[in-house]
């Protein structure tokens, strides 16, 4: 294949990739869009394999097949609740791949020091950071933010070491500072993700996603490959935008996520509340909901942990079909462990996507709703985010469930959410707490409704 044919194939692939992401604008077009992405990838790989750049197709082809088998196996097996760690793991492999390529380039005598150093640096952070994120999400290590003494000083020294070794390598081209850069970047990836945890995980995943894109840009520069640059920039932009949306939805700045200041400041703001929360039982809840004309369900991560999405869908269905209740689902952008996670979980339970609404679209509807059924969510409904400027969650956009005539909170206890802030809604006159496991409580309500 001639060089110009290769370039045309790359251009076509780039267009296909852009169209593929473009098609995610609506669920109807999205499936076709994924296929466009697959075509783009096949085109790019085949064109490269048959170009003059690759002379040994046998071994390379074998390597591709091995990767395809491993990747397909895990992708077909993964549960949708475990999606975030799966994405983190895949992301890490992409990062490691970038590390190996830049190492191979330097070993085979490439003189593009800056480009390879950047590919190595970003790829290494994406790799070790993603693996740590994977371990946290998978529960292999504690998901809580982890702090150790002199953490910031250590990170700063490490960052300086990265810069120094990078500069040393770029100037001299020696291999030793290159290895040092690799090790320092790998450690930096770990120490950057260690202090982040809990509800901040969606942000971390998005940032790491962005890094793997920028690593591809670095490799693109070192190999003079336009497709890598284009795709890398799009992926980098995508991850960056998602992190921005997530930080915005949690009212956090990127700096405060990275330095983990929320955990520290919130401890002081937990206040003693000597009010009484009213407990309801599933019978009452079922009675109130079957007589309602509009019920809005607000699922949070606790719902996913309890695997309550299927029974929740059943409850919604019974309400709609047997009692003619209008049922809607309201999703906060940070519900779940990655952007859009809750939408996937509800889709998995066959909830039609037309019934699922984003925060801005549903917020004014709570005032006309008879019941808000909050299941496994807490902070994202806390009205203090609007009223209490001293609260750590002040300014965070929240679902205004308190405006509904009756609010049910399905929760294990009155414990605070991740932010450590008490929720005054628990003590509101129109709120009933349904204590217990999200799945069990919903099952009980559904069985009463079905009678």
């Amino acid at each position, binding site marked *: 294949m001639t060089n110009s044919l290769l370039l045309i194939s790359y251009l076509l692939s780039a267009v296909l990739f852009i169209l593929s992401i473009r098609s995610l604008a609506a669920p109807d077009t999205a499936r076709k869009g994924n296929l466009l992405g697959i075509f783009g990838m096949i085109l790019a790989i085949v064109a490269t394999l048959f170009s003059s750049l690759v002379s*040994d197709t046998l071994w390379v082809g074998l390597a*591709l097949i091995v990767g395809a088998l491993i990747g*397909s196996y895990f992708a077909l097996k993964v549960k949708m609740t475990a999606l975030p760690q799966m994405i983190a793991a895949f992301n890490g492999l*992409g990062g490691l*791949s970038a590390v190996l390529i830049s190492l191979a380039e330097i070993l085979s005598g490439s003189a593009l020091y800056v480009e390879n150093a950047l590919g190595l640096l970003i790829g290494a952070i994406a790799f070790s950071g993603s693996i740590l994120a994977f371990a946290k999400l998978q529960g292999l290590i504690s998901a809580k933010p982890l702090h150790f003494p002199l953490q910031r000083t250590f990170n700063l020294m490490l960052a300086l070491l990265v810069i120094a070794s990078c500069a040393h390598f770029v100037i001299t081209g020696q291999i030793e500072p290159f290895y040092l850069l690799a090790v320092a970047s790998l450690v930096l990836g770990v120490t950057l993700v260690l202090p982040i945890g809990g509800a901040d995980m969606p942000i971390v995943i998005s940032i790491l996603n962005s890094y793997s894109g920028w690593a591809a840009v670095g490799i693109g520069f070192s190999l003079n490959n336009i497709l890598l640059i284009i795709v890398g920039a799009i992926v980098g932009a995508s991850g960056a935008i998602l992190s921005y949306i997530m930080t915005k939805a949690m009212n956090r700045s990127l700096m405060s996520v990275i330095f983990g200041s929320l955990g520290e400041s919130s401890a002081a703001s937990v206040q003693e509340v000597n009010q009484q929360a009213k407990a309801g039982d599933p019978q009452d809840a079922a009675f109130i909901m079957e007589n309602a004309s509009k019920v809005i369900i607000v699922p949070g991560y606790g719902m996913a942990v309890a695997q309550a999405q299927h029974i929740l869908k059943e409850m919604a269905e019974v309400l709609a079909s047997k009692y003619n209740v209008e049922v809607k689902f309201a999703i906060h952008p940070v519900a779940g462990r990655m952007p859009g996670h809750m939408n996937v979980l509800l889709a998995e339970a066959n909830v039609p996507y*037309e019934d699922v609404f984003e925060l801005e679209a549903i917020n004014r509807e709570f005032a006309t709703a008879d019941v808000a059924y909050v299941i496994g969510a807490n902070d994202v409904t806390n009205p203090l985010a609007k009223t209490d400027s001293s609260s750590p969650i002040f300014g965070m956009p929240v679902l205004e469930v308190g405006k509904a005539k009756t609010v049910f909170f399905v929760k294990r206890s009155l414990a605070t959410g991740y932010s450590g802030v008490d929720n005054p809604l628990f003590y509101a006159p129109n709120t009933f707490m349904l204590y217990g496991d999200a799945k069990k409580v919903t099952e009980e309500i559904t069985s009463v409704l079905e009678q």
Partner: protein
Amino acid sequence: MTDSFLLWTILILACFAGYFVVWGVTPALHSPLMSVSNAISGVVVLGALITAGATEFSSAKILGLIAVVLASINIFGGFIVSQRMLLMFKKKEKPLPQEVKQHD
């Protein structure tokens, strides 16, 4: 100089393309967006293919081959997970008459 300027031009323009196209993605599909973008970031496989495609066996070629395997896992895993997710997003089978469609 001109060559690297060309690459920078492509990079900057691609950033703009990415910016606008990603903002157009509906929030409900942010998870598929992540896994699709994750899959296409596996395009580093091209770099790996080139490094691994050398005729002679060397440590660089071995590293390249490992990189091909890793990127290939990323690509196949990413696209398959995306497809699984997207297949689950369904419309209502029988829209109830009293329901008003409010989807944007």
